[in-house]
């Protein structure tokens, strides 16, 4: 314990000296973090930072963009037996965007500079505090979990080249080879049709682009723990290359697992909400809710109106969202029609019966032979965004 805290103390000095040099990152205590996340006592000082031992229950995340991260790292702690491992960091960072992000590997990192692994993970295996794995263990735990799924092997040589007869690999060449590789842009399917065993509706249609574009979900909100294997499998390369989403696919998952993918958000007990006889149409606010969204509202993300992800019927009165559109304050110009002098002083309800703005306005109250939209109470202008 004592050793660990002293180690952390050294880290702190290292970090603080880094801050001093760079002076780019904001100082960590100026950020919006609860001090208790890392410090035990109320007033941590430089001499006694009273840090909570790693690994902590709660940690902070940093997400620098993968493009700004180092392209390769050379891992050479086992140089006596194996050649150094050239780790293509950047491409891994890109892949991690579909899973836990930087935190997948840089777990328990404080805000600020990313710490290298050996700051917390000891190089020695025979040690007193065995709470954290040693460096070798930590590296391998990070790499092999994915890699053994990817190529179904657990041997050393898939990452390490054996040092035989002094055949040293040319590190520079390796770096050049893989250093500049970038992960290609992930192709996003429009829709995926799932074939199910449910008799009263065999097909479940999932509109992927609706979820990302209209519903505004991030990749990680669904692809929480997808590592490389989600797309890549060395044994059978069915996944990202051959999987075409133009015909129904069957999922090889347990029922609860299958449902979980949707039911985390779509909490319903109505099977036919998802299970249909035919391929479903993409989401249409007008068809599904009888409230067709017009030009302005179409561009909004769902949560702009449906706060807190509650997709329930909202009050369709304008004023329920546009709080300042009260009588007299409302500028009709916003609708793209500037009222002429005769009409500016009228009450809203003179044309919009019962203040139902969704319905066509009427001219009957004053005019006998006029009707909207043939005749307009003003001048049409280019529509403006509210």
């Amino acid at each position, binding site marked *: 314990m004592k050793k660990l805290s002293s180690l952390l103390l050294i880290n702190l000095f290292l970090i603080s000296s880094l801050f001093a040099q760079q002076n780019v990152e904001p100082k960590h205590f100026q950020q919006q973090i609860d001090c208790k996340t890392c410090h035990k006592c109320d007033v941590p000082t430089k001499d006694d930072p009273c840090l909570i031992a790693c*690994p902590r229950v709660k940690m902070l995340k940093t997400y620098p963009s993968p493009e700004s991260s180092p392209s390769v790292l050379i891992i050479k702690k086992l140089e006596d037996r194996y050649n150094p491992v050239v780790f293509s960091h950047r491409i891994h960072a890109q892949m991690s965007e579909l899973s836990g992000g930087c935190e997948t590997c840089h777990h328990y990192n404080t805000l600020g500079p990313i710490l290298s692994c050996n700051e917390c993970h000891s190089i020695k295996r025979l040690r007193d505090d*065995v709470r954290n794995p040693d460096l070798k263990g*930590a590296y391998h*735990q990070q790499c092999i979990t994915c890699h053994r799924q990817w190529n179904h092997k657990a041997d050393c040589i898939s990452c390490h080249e054996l040092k035989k007869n002094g055949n040293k690999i040319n590190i520079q060449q390796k770096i050049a080879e893989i250093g500049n590789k970038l992960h290609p842009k992930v192709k996003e399917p429009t829709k995926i049709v799932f074939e199910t065993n449910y008799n009263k509706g065999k097909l479940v249609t999932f509109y992927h682009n609706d979820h990302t574009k209209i519903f505004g979900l991030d990749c990680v909100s669904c692809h929480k723990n997808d590592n490389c294997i989600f797309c890549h499998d060395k044994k059978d390369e069915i996944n990202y290359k051959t999987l075409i989403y133009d015909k129904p696919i069957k999922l090889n998952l347990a029922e609860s697992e299958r449902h979980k993918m949707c039911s985390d958000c779509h909490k319903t007990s109505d099977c036919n909400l998802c299970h249909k006889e035919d391929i479903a149409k993409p989401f249409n606010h007008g068809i599904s809710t009888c409230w067709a969204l017009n030009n302005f509202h179409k561009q909004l993300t769902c949560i702009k109106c449906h706060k807190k992800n509650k997709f329930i019927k909202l009050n369709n009165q304008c004023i329920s969202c546009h709080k300042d559109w009260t009588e007299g304050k409302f500028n009709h110009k916003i609708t793209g029609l500037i009222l002429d002098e005769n009409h500016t002083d009228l009450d809203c309800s003179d044309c919009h019966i019962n203040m139902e703005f969704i319905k066509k306005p009427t001219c009957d109250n004053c005019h006998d032979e006029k009707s909207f939209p043939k005749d307009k109470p003003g001048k049409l202008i280019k529509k403006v965004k509210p």
Partner: protein
Amino acid sequence: MDRRNFLKAAAIACTAAIPAKDLKANEKFKIDEDRVGVLVDTTICIGCRNCEWACKKAHNLSTEPLEKYSNREVFENKRRPNNKALTVVNQFYNPKNSQLPIDVKVQCMHCDEPACVSACIVHAITKHKEGPVTWDSTMCIGCRYCMVACPFQIPAFEYDKALQPKIMKCDFCIDRQKEGKLPACVEICPTETLTFGKRKDLIEIARDRIKRKPNRYSNHILGEHEVGGTSWLYLAGQDFSKLDFPKLVSDPAPGVTESIQHGIFAYFIPPIALYALLGGIMWINKNKSGEE
């Protein structure tokens, strides 16, 4: 036959009881609070089988080169430690993720109250207060009672040897430990699936891991209580019975055997009492028939 003869005989029988005290003293063996153990986290193990290789190397058993150990086909059958391999890794299907099979290393658990030590007819198996349970070649008579007793079915016997067959089981690399080294398997493990440390620390670490990742681990540290506690502890993502571990209670491994034994032989009083009783009956009947 007279009374004096009889008393003499009783006295002879009594002298036999003296060593009984030694036996009792032996039993009051105190185990070290800081004894060592190994925590095996089966959710980390990748089944590289390097431990199998390192174990054979450390115990001078014949082995293939390390490179051959990446062969996955051995997992098709479940293996057990035997006289040629003191530890083996078995692979199990993972219901949580079929791509990530569960690998489980098997070896002697180094019980705190080992059945083999209690059973061994000549005390050839010893529980060291530092943790390891080891076997002594100079004493063993090859009766294989330890194999009958072991609840984990670990000790193996060299059936193919006509002379000096050995009981083969993991010795926790006690010689390496004495040199200040780690057990061979712990040292080579690439992922530190095997964490070597004080048993009490390991239990704390294991509890912490379960608390931190309740989805990853089933809430059970195998070996914390089983058969009175073992030096090797296991963590897993599912029920241990699905990983071929025997279902065991928390009573010490020797069970009631020792109480029965010590009940019958409590300072040799019951045998001597029986002896005296039978002697008495004999004497009475003898006299009776003499009078007739």
